[in-house]
């Protein structure tokens, strides 16, 4: 996904003189050819993430369309106040592109993990958040985000599904178990594991790479009384949205994602997926327990 972003962004810089890329050393070498062609619109501020967003805000105030890029914990968590004030409060819009996601570099430890990034962006108003599940989704999402006039966060990851589902981001039924079936909503790269987890269960699986704005109409059309939400970032991030969307009907919601506890373990991303119960076996255990509770009640 990172390579697709760099290639697509390099093309956008050539196509649209409104665009500018702001970097904080991360990916600077990959953007070097573009920087030679557009020295005033490819700006590497060094390892200065507060300035990264401040510069993006200033560029936007002059009418440019800035794309700020870095590792997710530094882009979103370290510079959160700049995102809130230098972008949102100024009415200055930008596209933020993060890499690293929740635990892509698990061996690097807590400093490089960013499970809360989507929740932080969700505390702001009017943002679009894309969590692509395949490199093939990245280019059209980036192009659409840059062409829009609102702020967006693209959360790129080394985790991926086997196939791409491009499109606008409305819920897309990948597996249909019929009316009234439990609905599982998978966001981004957790889709394959979710499909494997419920392969032999009467569960409809819908996919989205756009948790914000969430496809509320699609959810209401697809949801019965049981909804399972699987997100590759902090568990429960979209529970508020689902609960509000279904507030007028009795329903049960299971929100799965990355846990809040700091594991203090290294290993691989696959290890962390398993430890957070987001692999197929872990998801199956959670879904069985959730639906088992239903059987016990009925």
């Amino acid at each position, binding site marked *: 996904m990172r390579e697709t972003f760099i290639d697509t962004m390099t093309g956008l810089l050539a196509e649209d003189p409104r665009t*500018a890329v702001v970097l904080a050393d991360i990916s600077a070498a990959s953007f070097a050819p573009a920087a030679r062609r557009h020295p005033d619109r490819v700006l590497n*501020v060094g390892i200065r993430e507060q300035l990264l967003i*401040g510069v993006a805000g*200033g*560029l*936007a*105030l*002059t009418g440019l369309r800035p794309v700020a890029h870095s590792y997710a914990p530094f882009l979103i968590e370290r510079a959160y106040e700049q995102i809130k004030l*230098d972008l949102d*409060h100024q009415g200055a819009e930008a596209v933020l592109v993060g890499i690293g996601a929740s635990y892509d570099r698990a061996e690097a430890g807590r400093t490089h993990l960013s499970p809360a990034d989507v929740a932080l962006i969700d505390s702001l108003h009017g943002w679009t958040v894309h969590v692509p599940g395949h490199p093939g989704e990245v280019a059209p999402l980036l192009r659409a985000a840059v062409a829009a006039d609102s702020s967006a966060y693209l959360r790129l990851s080394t985790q991926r599904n086997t196939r791409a589902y491009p499109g606008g981001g409305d819920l897309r039924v990948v597996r249909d178990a019929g009316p009234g079936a439990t609905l599982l909503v998978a966001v981004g790269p957790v889709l394959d594991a979710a499909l494997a987890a419920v392969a032999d269960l009467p569960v409809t699986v819908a996919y989205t790479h756009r948790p914000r704005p969430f496809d509320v109409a699609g959810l209401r059309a697809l949801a019965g009384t049981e909804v399972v939400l699987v997100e590759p970032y902090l568990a429960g991030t979209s529970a508020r949205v689902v609960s509000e969307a279904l507030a007028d009907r009795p329903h049960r919601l299971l929100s799965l994602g990355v846990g809040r506890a700091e594991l203090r373990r290294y290993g691989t991303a696959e290890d962390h997926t398993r430890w957070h119960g987001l692999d197929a076996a872990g998801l199956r255990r959670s879904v069985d327990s959730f639906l088992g509770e239903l059987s016990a009640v009925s």
Partner: protein
Amino acid sequence: MLWVLYDRVLRITPETADDPDRDRFLLSKGHAVAGYYAVLAAKGFLPDHWLDDQGGPDSRLGDHPDRLLVPGVEIGSGSLGHGLGLGVGTALGLRAQGRTDPRVYVLLGDAELDEGSNHEAIAYAGATGLVNLTAIVLDNRSASHGWPGGAASRFTVNGWTAATVDGRDHDALHTALTGHDPHRPHVVVAVVTDGEQP
């Protein structure tokens, strides 16, 4: 300082407040609104009667300025340490669009320099020779731990030109504000401590 800027330095009027080639003034120390609003009113950016209701439920004037509510205000500020980064971005945006004439002025306080975000902006602007940027530090000696060698040294060590002057001397301020170098960013330190010479 604000009067010298708006009366003698900044090329901006209420009629050119949206001109892309206007000079920009960014008030980073957003708590200094009383004088700011008064100067904006005196120059016709906002009606005088707005000044009578600052902070009221229907007022556009808060205790910190909001660029979306007050004509002529370039940035909303209040949380210290944001204006210089936005100013660097504004200067870069003007340069990228070939607008070499307008200049960006950012007013900070000496205590505001405590915020590390300023150091990020100072170092980058100096290293890249951002020529269309002027920082103004209103030095009333309020930084808890001070700036040994003077606030200007924080800038000059990063390649800026600097002028330190009496903050109440209008002609000295004008000379300092207009004496920027064609190749480097410029800082004006305006010392305003009572009884203390710069």
